């Protein structure tokens, strides 16, 4: 669906945002009311290495990995569950594979609804096989396979999503050089252009099959920055650079919702609190329970305004108790039972403050995702939306930097402070018009391995 820019904030303040409720709730076919008042768990089973050899073995693997999680909901009494399968290479490369796995899981969910009254929904997330530095983003075989994969899975899945890769080749070059200009060009400009090209088509495919177009995530760039920033004793990338990249990613990821995506958004999009402030769609977020896939410093805070609570991906293995997918589905379900008890008791404001105070000053990347700050950054992005993707992303980054530098409780090491000050200087020194910025970058990054302006229509 053609992009319609969002130029008005969906929420009036961060205080107005709350977990469990979204301005534009979404209903699934088996009756989950996402964003309709309560929080729902989302588990993401990943197949064991080797099970992707044939369609038959992969179907069998997902039948058990997804089935175990559904069964555990009935055992412990959790009322709802969303199961996401992020495609392994073979599932998208052979579009029928993804389709058959979606059909199989839909049947399993219909049985559970029938037999127990368990409300479940399936999200299928084709893999973005387009490696920017090796494939033409718009004309490669991989591009066609991805589109075909969406057509296959949307016939059976309740929700479709993707983790698109536009601009990653520039981002990868820039992030390890503290180069905020390259980060803004990769995520904010190239990423946004690719998003518009992709999501225009994805939303139409979803609508044609009566499937929910969920959303996108800047996992390939902003999460790479977050992982490389790492924890409290890593020395790869300054955390403040991950914070600025995250603010820019909100401007880029919003394009999906401007093209008609409705949420639930993608779990690994840590920019989702900002997305919710701007668009009002229900968001899925991941925090402490995604430790199975990666560590993070916003384990509780990132749940403060979530509508769906997820665990990123867990590989299907045996544990003492049972298989990993049932273990993590049980834990996620109990976290949701806790959030929903708080809502029913009328203690949601206290719960929200508890979650935020746990991590707000643990890290600068967490700080900018606290609801009030997320709203401010969203407001800066929307305030410049009419102008250009570039102006919008740049405004978001500058606002994030100002929030970090302006908050006395946010202590920074010397090195982090210096890195942030340098980045702010660079941001302020950039040209005003998107046209000039793009010209500057096309020259500055022309030798970056695999950068092909034609992939973005430039």
């Amino acid at each position: 669906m053609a992009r319609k820019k969002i130029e008005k904030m969906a929420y009036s303040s961060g205080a107005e945002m709350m977990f469990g409720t979204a301005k534009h709730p979404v209903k699934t076919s088996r009756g989950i009311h996402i964003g309709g008042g309560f929080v729902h768990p989302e588990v993401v089973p990943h197949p064991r290495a080797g099970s992707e050899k044939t369609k038959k073995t992969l179907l069998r693997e997902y039948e058990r990995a997804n089935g175990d999680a559904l069964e555990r909901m009935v055992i412990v009494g959790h009322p709802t569950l969303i199961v996401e399968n992020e495609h392994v290479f073979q599932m998208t490369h052979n579009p029928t594979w993804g389709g058959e796995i979606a059909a199989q899981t839909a049947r399993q969910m219909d049985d559970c609804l029938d037999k127990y009254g368990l409300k479940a929904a399936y999200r299928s997330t084709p893999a973005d096989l387009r490696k920017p530095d090796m494939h033409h983003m718009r004309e490669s075989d991989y591009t066609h396979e991805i589109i075909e994969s969406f057509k296959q899975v949307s016939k059976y899945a309740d929700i479709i999503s993707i983790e698109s890769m536009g601009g990653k080749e520039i981002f990868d070059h820039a992030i390890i050089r503290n180069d905020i200009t390259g980060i803004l060009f990769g995520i904010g400009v190239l990423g946004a252009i690719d998003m518009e090209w992709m999501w225009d088509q994805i939303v139409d495919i979803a609508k044609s099959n009566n499937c929910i177009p969920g959303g996108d995530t800047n996992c390939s760039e902003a999460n790479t920055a977050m992982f490389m920033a790492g924890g409290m004793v890593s020395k790869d990338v300054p955390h403040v650079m991950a914070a600025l990249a995250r603010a820019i990613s909100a401007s880029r990821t919003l394009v999906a919702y401007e093209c008609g995506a409705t949420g639930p958004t993608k779990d690994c999009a840590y920019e989702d609190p900002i997305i919710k402030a701007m668009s009002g769609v229900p968001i899925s977020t991941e925090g402490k329970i995604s430790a199975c896939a990666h560590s993070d410093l916003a384990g509780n805070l990132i749940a403060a305004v979530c509508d769906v609570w997820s665990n990123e991906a867990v590989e299907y293995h045996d544990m003492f108790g049972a298989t990993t997918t049932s273990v993590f589905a049980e834990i996620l379900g109990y976290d949701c039972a806790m959030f929903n008890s708080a809502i029913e008791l009328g203690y949601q404001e206290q719960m929200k403050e508890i979650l935020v105070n746990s991590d707000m000053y643990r890290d600068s990347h967490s700080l900018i995702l606290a609801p009030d700050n997320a709203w401010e950054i969203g407001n800066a992005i929307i305030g410049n939306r009419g102008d250009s993707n570039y102006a919008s992303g740049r405004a978001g980054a500058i606002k994030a930097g100002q929030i970090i530098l302006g908050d006395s409780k946010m202590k920074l090491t010397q090195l982090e402070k210096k890195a942030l000050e340098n980045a702010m200087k660079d941001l302020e020194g950039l040209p005003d018009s998107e046209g000039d910025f793009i010209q500057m970058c096309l020259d500055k990054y022309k030798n970056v391995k695999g950068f092909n302006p034609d992939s973005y229509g430039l």
Partner: protein
Amino acid sequence: MMKVLNDFSNIFRRYDLHVEKTGQAKEVSKDPILQDIAKFVVEGDEEGVLPVVQKALETKSPLEVINDALIPGMNEVSRLWEEGSYFLPQVILSADAMNVGIAECEKKMGKSMERKAKVVTHTAEGDIHDIGQVIVNALLNANGFEVIDLGSDVPVDKVVAACRDHQPIMVTGTALMTTTMSAFPKIAHQLKKANLEIPFICGGGAVAEEYVSEYDLGIWGKEASQAPGMAEDALAGESWQSMRSKWNG
């Protein structure tokens, strides 16, 4: 005082109330004396069943009492358990009552009752006595199999020797800890070497399907309630490979 909600439907769902079934045991015999025996078995009444069996044996043959009262009563209980109306304790108490009745009939016959086939059961060496094995024994027994119970903390070669002597149609192993289940592949290996191609059901707390599928003869037993069904397949001559694909899928 603590604030307590009234409606929990957005917090948890009582699936047990949703699937609740209240089945009743059906009548198993038109003969009032035999039906009376079956009722005591269904109610798991170990004391009550003895006098009615002794009275019945005054006018009926031991085999009649066993095949037309004791076993049909037990089958009703297994059906009700399968269906979800009865719980495990009722099955165990009914098996106890049935065994009291069978013992009385065997005493009258002067020899033990014909059993379908032998099954060797054990709990792994170093592992604590596990209820899982006790349940498997009771269920196999209740379904007419002769159980060779080796008990718990059983060394590998003792299990293999028992299989050589008794030539059972099936052997089961229970392990609660990952550090003790390592005996199972050894047992399977020795059974193969002694070309005793016996389906080897391995289950219990720590035993995972992934682990059991790594050695020949191994079939993962997810729940004790599967034991009788597996024994019937083994009795019917099914290979361990086809049993594994059927039960572990």
